[in-house]
């Protein structure tokens, strides 16, 4: 959380992170927020449907279903393409619902015809290229169910270090 004390009229953002490792199928969590307003605590609610087989979803399949922009060298990895395949028999429009815009932007197709695959792209912001993070973005489709998909985005940075010298105790040679 950016701020723990809010003046009258002020605002802040509360980030809720869900680790899906332990879950299968539907998950619902209600984190509680205690304030000096007193009881009862306020709650926010998050809902997710965890897919053990994310490569066979409906009505779209996202490839790859997780985006990794990790960087281990000097060459900056600031974008990644991914595909969205419409496996239903109706055209689907795509609307972005949530993303961490300090870290990246996402260019999604407006509509995907039935059976077609559309390309999409995630581009890191200048700030996003400088740090390691694990975030996600969520989009919604125009099918009757209003299906939503959340794509995890991970970036690990290892700054190129000086080449390691010989380990302590190993001979330096030369004598």
């Amino acid at each position, binding site marked *: 959380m950016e*701020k723990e004390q809010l003046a009258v009229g002020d605002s802040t953002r509360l980030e809720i992170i869900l680790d899906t490792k332990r879950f299968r199928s539907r998950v619902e969590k209600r984190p509680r927020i205690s304030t000096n307003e007193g009881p009862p605590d306020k709650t926010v609610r998050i809902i997710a449907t965890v897919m053990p087989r994310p490569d066979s979803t409906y009505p779209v399949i996202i490839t790859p279903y997780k985006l990794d922009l990790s960087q281990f060298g000097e060459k900056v990895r600031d974008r990644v393409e991914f595909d969205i395949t419409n496996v239903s028999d109706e055209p689907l429009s795509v609307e972005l619902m949530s993303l961490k815009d300090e870290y990246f932007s996402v260019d999604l197709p407006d509509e995907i015809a039935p059976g077609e695959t559309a390309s999409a792209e995630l581009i890191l912001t200048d700030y996003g290229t400088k740090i390691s993070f694990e975030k996600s973005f969520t989009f919604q489709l125009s099918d009757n169910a209003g299906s939503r998909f959340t794509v995890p985005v991970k970036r690990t940075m290892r700054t190129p270090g000086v080449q390691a010298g010989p380990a302590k105790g190993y001979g330096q040679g030369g004598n």
Partner: protein
Amino acid sequence: MRRLISTLLPMLIVVFFAGSLMAAPRLSIPEETFNFGFVPQHSKIAHEFWLHSVGDDTLRILRVKPG
């Protein structure tokens, strides 16, 4: 005039202190629910909720307990 002041002054004092005592923080969360939809297993996902201070005193967020 004196009678008017002696009547109005206590009323004004009561109104002033009542206002101070009534000042209270209030939290407003416009979007209380977020649906991630389908998510892959073994991953970390995140969403930000906006919290607004809409009372008439400073709002302090004491803690957030995982659900």
